[in-house]
């Protein structure tokens, strides 16, 4: 455990201001609320502005492949701001998860695809359920540093798709985040009991939008029926390569989702404090009532803690620290729950206005609750941690 920097560098703060300014201008709450009513006119131009104009699509891509050559620390700051604005863009699914998978894959095709992602020419998605954790307690034997903990559980299977012809895929993957915005699908598929990774043109695939609990990250069920695909990683001589790349992508997604959750929680705290400093009842500013002050103080302490956990996970990811697996699950377990608490407190402490469709608090409650379930619930990550830090459960 090295003493990783848990603060923000000047470069990171500059990036934050740039992203925040653009979101203030281009992502107003009313337009985000409209997404729930089926008006997605906000989404494409906003993603173009972030991905291409600011170059965020290639943030994690090395400069020699057309990217910005930044690290997970910067990506985490972007996610904090996207969380604060509840911005409906596929940064996490394309610029973090899919990009990390391709970078880890390292094949020629992967390099070409990475460059097109970095240029903002394409948007990609790793076709797995949004609930897929990088590791589970049952598969924890594979997590770096974990104790062997038995056979793989049925739910831990990485892919629901099979390679049925030489380069043909069939299968259904439900509840995929980022599939609707993507034109390139990265599909984990089984061939002879091992995991492979294929690239599929989204236009060839039946993607059915799901009415989603969090419409700022609308999910889709992805149906592949004898779909033509190009192998990204399908080498019998290195049968673990695809699985490693996929798990690397999911680890990056999990570690950095914590920063989005931090952004969500920060918005909830800031806006609730702001509101309670002006709202009057009984002839007093209600933020002066101790019952409310103390809840906000606890929330502040929680948000500060979430900041430490999220920064630690981002820093560990950025430096490839050996503590990454623990850092990731600690951040997922803590920030996942904390963001939900923050959003629930925001709704309650705003009183009636927090229940309205017009006021954006509900965007954050829905996002926080959905994010809590994404990449493995806090409970799943605590179970994984139990194996990582050698605190096994009760014998059966």
């Amino acid at each position, binding site marked *: 455990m090295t003493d990783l920097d848990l603060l923000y560098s000047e470069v990171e703060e500059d990036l934050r201001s740039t992203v925040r300014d653009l979101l203030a201008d281009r992502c107003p709450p009313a337009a985000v609320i409209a997404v729930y009513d089926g008006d997605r006119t906000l989404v494409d131009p906003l993603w173009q502005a972030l991905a291409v104009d600011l170059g965020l699509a290639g943030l994690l891509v090395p400069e020699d492949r057309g990217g910005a050559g930044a690290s997970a620390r910067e990506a985490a700051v972007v996610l904090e701001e996207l969380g604060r604005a509840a911005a409906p863009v596929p940064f996490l699914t394309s610029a973090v998860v899919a990009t990390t998978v391709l970078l880890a894959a390292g094949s020629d095709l992967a390099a070409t695809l990475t460059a097109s992602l970095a240029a903002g020419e394409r948007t990609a998605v790793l076709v797995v359920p949004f609930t897929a954790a990088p590791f589970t307690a049952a598969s924890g034997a594979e997590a770096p540093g974990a104790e062997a903990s038995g056979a793989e559980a049925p739910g831990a299977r990485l892919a629901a798709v099979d390679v049925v012809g030489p380069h043909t895929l069939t299968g259904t993957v439900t509840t995929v985040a980022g599939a609707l915005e993507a034109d390139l699908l990265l599909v984990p598929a089984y061939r002879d009991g091992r995991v492979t990774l294929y690239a599929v043109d989204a236009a060839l695939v039946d993607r059915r939008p799901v009415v989603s609990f969090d419409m700022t990250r609308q999910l889709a069920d992805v149906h592949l029926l004898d779909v033509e695909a190009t192998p990204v990683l399908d080498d019998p001589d290195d049968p673990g390569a695809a699985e490693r790349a996929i798990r690397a992508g999911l680890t990056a997604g999990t570690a950095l989702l914590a920063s989005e959750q931090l952004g969500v929680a920060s918005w909830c705290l800031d806006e609730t404090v702001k509101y309670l400093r002006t709202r009057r009842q009984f002839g007093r500013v209600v933020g002066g009532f101790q019952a409310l002050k103390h809840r906000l*103080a606890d929330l502040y302490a929680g948000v500060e803690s979430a900041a*430490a956990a999220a920064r630690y996970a981002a820093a560990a990811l950025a430096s490839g620290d050996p503590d990454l697996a623990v850092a990731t699950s600690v951040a997922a377990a803590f920030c996942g729950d904390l963001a939900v608490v923050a959003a629930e407190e925001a709704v309650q402490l705003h009183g009636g206005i927090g229940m309205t469709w017009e006021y954006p608090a509900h965007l954050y409650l829905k996002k926080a609750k959905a994010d809590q379930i994404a990449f493995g619930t806090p409970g799943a990550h605590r179970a994984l941690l139990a194996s990582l830090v050698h605190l*096994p*459960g009760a014998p059966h």
Partner: protein
Amino acid sequence: MADEHAIEAIHADLRTRVRTFLADHDPAGVRTDADRLEFLRSRYDAGLAWVAFPVGHGGLGLGQSYQSEVDASFAAAGAPDNRPHANGIGLGMAAPTIAAFGTEEQKRRYLRPLWTGEEIWCQLFSEPGAGSDLANVATRAVRDGDTWIVNGQKVWTSGAHHSDLAILVARTDIDLPKHRGLTYFLCDMHDPGVDVRPLRQITGEAEFNEVFLTDVRIPDSQRLGAVGDGWRVATGTLNNERVSIGGKATVREAGMIGVVADTWRVRPELRTPELHDRLMKLWVEAEVARLTGRRLAQKLAQGQPGPEGSAIKLAFARINQQLSGLELELLGEEGLRYSDWTMVRPERVEFTARDAGYRYLRAKGNSIEGGTSEILRNILAERVLGLPGEPRVDKDVPWKDTAR
């Protein structure tokens, strides 16, 4: 953050200073107590005691972040340390306050023997009528020429029975509102008017004392800060206290979580699924509290302790209490046995010491000492979040006219 090259240059310079010092003062030659003191005094004079302190007062005016490397180098060389556990109040609270508010002469007189452990300090702040409302202290200091005559009663004074000096807050003007009539003093605990009596506590022992002050004489040269400025000085001390109570654990599983985790690992027969869920939740919270402490320390390395430290102490108290309660349930039958209720004076207080029952009871103090959790929440809400203050009926009234 400062430039990386500049930071590396400072580290290199520190390493050279420590190496040179150790070459001139071989720790192997330290045999007697006198040798030890001589060694510590020289280390202080070389500016290698607390590097964040000013040059000439045991430091080099560097950031706090450089301290651990220096301490580690001395420890690795087998050098005697200044037994920091024996003088926690002195090092954690009196020293930073004297450094911040003291005159050059006061710094020269008090800081060196404080650091070397020749003089042990305690804190005369709380009173029976001034707990959370510390500004309500009733201990009076009345001026008599160049001397102050002090009368009153203090309470919850840890270590008073073996202290040489105390930081003291007393009322010097009863006609002013409560915050404005206070003055901060450095009090000689060997004065014949100081009477220290043990205060037996929930665990059966007595780490704390009641201190009765009867016509104690304090020279005006031992006043810290201006007359009437005691509240501001005391606030500086208390921010340091919260950092020192909450901000210690730096390695994973330090403190209470480590104790409970060890029991969990070596006693599989005690495990239940319900306890496992609670343990893992608390493990995550303890780890996040550790990271939050590290993050605050990184912030402090660039500035001064502020009210943010209160957030860490809140978490620390809650986690310690929940973990020590969990441990008793985990132990079951053993949890029903207590080591010893005999009244003793512990030499050294460790929240994780003794048995599970002791830890559970002692942890109850964590949300009271150094600011109750309720007061800390007020502080965070008001000073960090900018929410309105509590109604204060006594704030602008002369202290002598307030209801007490």
